[in-house]
Every structure is written in C-alpha cells, then in structure tokens.
C-alpha cells in the first residue's frame, strides 16, 4: 500500500505517536538529534512541576522512552521511588530494556511511581507525588504515575509501566493515554523489581493503541530468565489490528456498574460502549459473581508476597537499611508477615488462592460467551492530592475494577473515552488469556472513530 508522506507541519514533533515518529524518522523529516532536543526541552520546562521523572538522561541518542523506576537499567539509578534504594545502580538490564535497545529505543529517563509500585495515586513516592497535567491539584493515578504523565504531557514517545492491580491502566485512565496490561507471562519480568510476583506484569503506556501493540510486540516473548514467561511472542499485523469490532460479542459485567461507580463516569463509559455497538459489536450483560471478593483476595495475596519480596532490602548488598522503607510498604510487609505466620496459612493465603481460582473461573465461564469484557477502569476520575492518604482501605477500593484481571492473569487495556469534570476517563477492555490481539483491535477501532487519544492537556504551568 502506497503511503503519503506524514503531515507534521502544524504539529509539535513531541506530539507524534511512536508509529508516527518511526515513520517521520524513516522519511527523514527530522533527525534523532532534533527529536531528543525537543523532548529534553519539554522535560526541562515541565518536569519540575509535574515530577514525572526521577532521573533524566541528558545525553539520549535514540528514540526516547520513559521507564518506570521499578525496571532495572544497567548503569542507570533505579530506586523504585524508595529511599531504601537511594544510590542503587543495577549492574544488569531488565529483559524488556534489552528488547527496547535492540529495537532502536533508548531511555530518556526513569519515572516516578508509588514506592515499590505500592499505591494507586503516585503519592507514595519517597520523592514527592507526580502531578496530573490535566489539573495540577489532582493525583496522576498510580502506581505508574510518572510514566503516565510523561506520555500525557509529551515528555517521551512512549513509556513502560508495571501493573499488579491496575498500576498501568488506572494512571493511563487518569491522564488520558493508552495503557496495556498484558497477560501474566506475556512479558518477561526479569529485572522488574518485584512487588507481588504472581501478579506483576510490565506493560506499554502509549499515545495510541497502535503504539501499544507495537511496543508489546517488541518486549514480549520467551526469556530464559523468567520461568513464567511463555515462549510465544505477541505479533500483530496491521490487517488484524484494523479488523474492527463487527461480529464481536461484548460482555458488560453487572458488578462493574454498581454502587460506588461515579454516575458521571458511568455515563462516559456507557456512551463509549454505545459507540462500540455502533461499530458493530453486540453487547450482553454478564456476571462475574466472585468479583466482589477480588479486592479481599488481592489484599491477602499482595501483602504476603510483598513481605517476602521486601526481605532482601537489608542494606548489605545494596541500598540503605530497613529504616528507610516508606509507610505503605511497611503496612503491607506487616500485613503479609502476619497472614503468612504460623497458624494462619489456611485462613489467609490458601483461602485467598482458592477465591482466586473462583475469580479465574468466572472469567473463563464469561469468555465462553463473549469475546471481550468492557467497563470502567476506575470508579472515579483523578481525585485531589492528599485526599485519601490517611485511609488505606478507601484508597485500595479505587482499584476495584482492575485487580481481577491480575488475579486471573488476563490482559486489560485502558483507552481514553472522554472526560468528566474536565478530567480524562478510561474505558477498560479485558480479554481472554493470551488474547491481547482482540482487545487491541477493539481499542484501535474505538480510537479511530473517537480520537480521544489525540486530546492533549493544556500545560500553562
């Protein structure tokens, strides 16, 4: 197919998607040097207030990507936004970093996040919260706060985040970008600083669905360093991505539209689903009966695994001693240590693992009748900074729609679908295990007709 030259005349080149940037570079419309110069200028201008980056590579040479600071980068400080890892410089690269480097990408900076990815607002960082570019007084969502904001504010071409209970999808939703949590095992976790190992997954955070598909293609596939990583690589052709929604059955779980969902957010989501129907999808109501227990199961499994994963931070081989661990992380270590301690195994971890099995079965049953499941990413839009800091349980409740996908290991996509009170809302599209293709295809069709992903925050800082 003959392509006409990309039109970028009236556009700042930092607004281009990854796919567009690659094409423009190929067409020699600008150089890598120019590209990096533009991004670094923007970072210099906006990062001090947004606090998206913790570390910036002023000397970046290739296509600039922003990397969440829980992903190990050889020779580049990696702190997981914690004081306990202050000064830590990994002697090795994560598998995903190696894959990006092989594809002509380099790291323009490491992004802020909730400490060790524990949190849903970005406020748990030891280095200060990331601000939402749509409203500087609002949280950016979390835990991949800096990655989301770096993409939303055009401070990078794309970013990598990690998602344990919604940490890619929720900040993507709060900042109006695309966020994909792949199936558990699709992308190697080698080098990803573990939070809850049975749930963590690295995912792309991008300016378009097409970009998310491309980045997933790059970073997925067999790795001899992560035993849970499957050996089939994700690959998608343009034809498949462009197949549209027609003929697909779309499930709407009634549990995702109940009490707690902000009515204004609900309206935006329902409108988006209507759009999918217009595109030829058939919607049916479904039930995921055990989803009401997902959060409870999650808050047993996560702290348990956290308590073990955080044991290595002892200040002997790297980092500082355990006194420098932050509040939320300490809380989870305490909870997990308690629930794994002698006599509690059956009541907590084993019980949660059984409920997890039921949650997984719910999805398997639902996917026997539907191709995708849709709903909100989050019950609300971004809230005020500081609003939920003193009440962990209320904070946890904002993850209610995203955690099930992690428990079941299925992929989930957040696509910008409008706004409420001037703040972005994301549509969540969940797919069968290993079927990222269908959710990307639906997301792509949706953004082609709506263009929400092209909306940019006004940065008059």
């Amino acid at each position, binding site marked *: 197919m003959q392509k006409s030259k990309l039109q970028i005349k009236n556009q700042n080149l930092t607004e281009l998607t990854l796919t567009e940037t690659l094409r423009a570079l190929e067409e020699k419309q600008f150089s890598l040097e120019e590209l990096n110069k533009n991004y670094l200028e923007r970072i210099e201008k906006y990062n001090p207030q947004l606090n998206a980056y913790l570390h910036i590579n002023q000397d970046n040479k290739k296509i600039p990507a922003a990397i969440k600071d829980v992903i190990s980068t050889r020779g580049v400080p990696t702190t997981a936004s914690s004081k306990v890892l202050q000064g830590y410089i990994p002697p090795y690269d994560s598998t995903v970093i190696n894959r990006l480097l092989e594809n002509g990408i380099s790291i323009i900076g490491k992004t802020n996040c909730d400490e060790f990815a524990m949190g849903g607002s970005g406020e748990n960082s030891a280095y200060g919260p990331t601000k939402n570019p749509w409203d500087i007084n609002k949280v950016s969502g979390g835990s991949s706060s800096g990655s989301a904001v770096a993409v939303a504010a055009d401070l990078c071409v794309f970013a990598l985040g990690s998602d344990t209970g919604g940490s890619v999808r929720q900040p993507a939703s709060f900042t109006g970008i695309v966020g994909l949590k792949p199936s558990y095992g699709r992308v190697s976790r080698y080098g990803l600083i573990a939070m809850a190992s049975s749930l963590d997954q690295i995912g792309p955070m991008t300016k378009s669905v097409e970009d998310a598909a491309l980045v997933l293609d790059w970073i997925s596939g067999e790795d001899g360093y992560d035993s849970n990583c499957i050996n089939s690589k994700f690959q998608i052709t343009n034809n498949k991505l462009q197949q549209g929604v027609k003929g697909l059955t779309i499930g709407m779980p009634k549990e995702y539209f109940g009490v707690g969902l902000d009515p204004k957010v609900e309206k935006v989501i329902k409108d988006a689903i209507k759009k999918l129907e217009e595109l030829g999808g058939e919607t049916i109501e479904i039930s995921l009966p055990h989803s009401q227990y997902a*959060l409870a199961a999650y*808050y047993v499994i996560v702290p348990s695994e956290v308590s073990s994963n955080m044991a290595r931070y002892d200040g002997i081989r790297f980092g500082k001693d355990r006194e420098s661990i932050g509040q939320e992380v300490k*809380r989870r270590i*305490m909870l997990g240590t308690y629930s794994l301690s002698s006599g509690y195994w059956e009541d907590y971890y084993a*019980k949660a693992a059984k409920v997890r099995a039921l949650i997984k079965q719910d999805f398997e049953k639902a996917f026997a009748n539907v191709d995708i499941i849709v709903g909100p990413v989050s019950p609300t839009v971004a809230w005020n900074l500081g609003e939920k800091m003193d009440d962990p*349980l209320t904070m946890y409740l904002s993850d209610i729609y995203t955690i099930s996908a992690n428990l079941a290991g299925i992929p989930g996509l957040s696509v910008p679908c409008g706004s409420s009170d001037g703040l972005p809302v994301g549509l969540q599209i969940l797919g069968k*295990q290993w079927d990222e293709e269908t959710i990307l295809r639906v997301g792509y069709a949706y953004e082609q007709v709506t263009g929400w992903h092209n909306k940019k925050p006004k940065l008059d800082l």
Partner: protein
Amino acid sequence: MKLTKDKVRLGQDKVKHVAKLANLPLSSEEEEKYPEQLSKILEYVEQLNKVDTSNVEPTFNVSGQSNVVRVDKVGECLNQEEALSNAPKKENARLQTPERSDGGQGFFVTKGVFAE
C-alpha cells in the same frame, strides 16, 4: 470509625511480634497506629470466609506453565567488582554486615557456630 476491641486482630504486642518477624524497625508512632489500621484491613479481607471454597483447588500461579527448566550449563556471571559495586561496606572482597547480638531488630537473634 474506631474498631471495637473484639475486632482488633492485631494488638500492639502482636504488632511488635510481627515487626520482629519481618525484621522491620517501627517508630513508636507506627506501633501506635498500626493495630487499628491493619485490623481494619484484616477485617475487610476476612469477608473471604463467606465464600464456600470446600471443593476448590487453590490457584497460586496463573502463567499456565509447568516444568520450566534449563539445561545445566554455566553462563555469564558478574565479575567481582560488579558484584560488590553497590555494597555500602566491604572488606577483602567480601560484603560486610555489622554484627548485632542484641537480640532486637538486628539479624543476630542467635549466633550460630560456623566451624570451618
């Protein structure tokens, strides 16, 4: 909302015990705050007991993989310099930890005999 006494899962003594198990130094403020905060979360997660799981096998891993093994072959290691590069204290190419025999928060709750 303050929890009634019977709903406190983790009293202050238990909090201290768990902190010791977790090798986690707590401030007195945290020791004060945690019984309430953590008990609330525990109370919330205990709704799991409402689910009948009598015939359910637990799911610990969702990767769907099994028997993932590698052949016994030596590969690349870090060199000594890299291995020690992040260590705050080292001596004679070994990492160093101060010995604390106070039986408190330190590592050395008990001292073992390591006869060479």
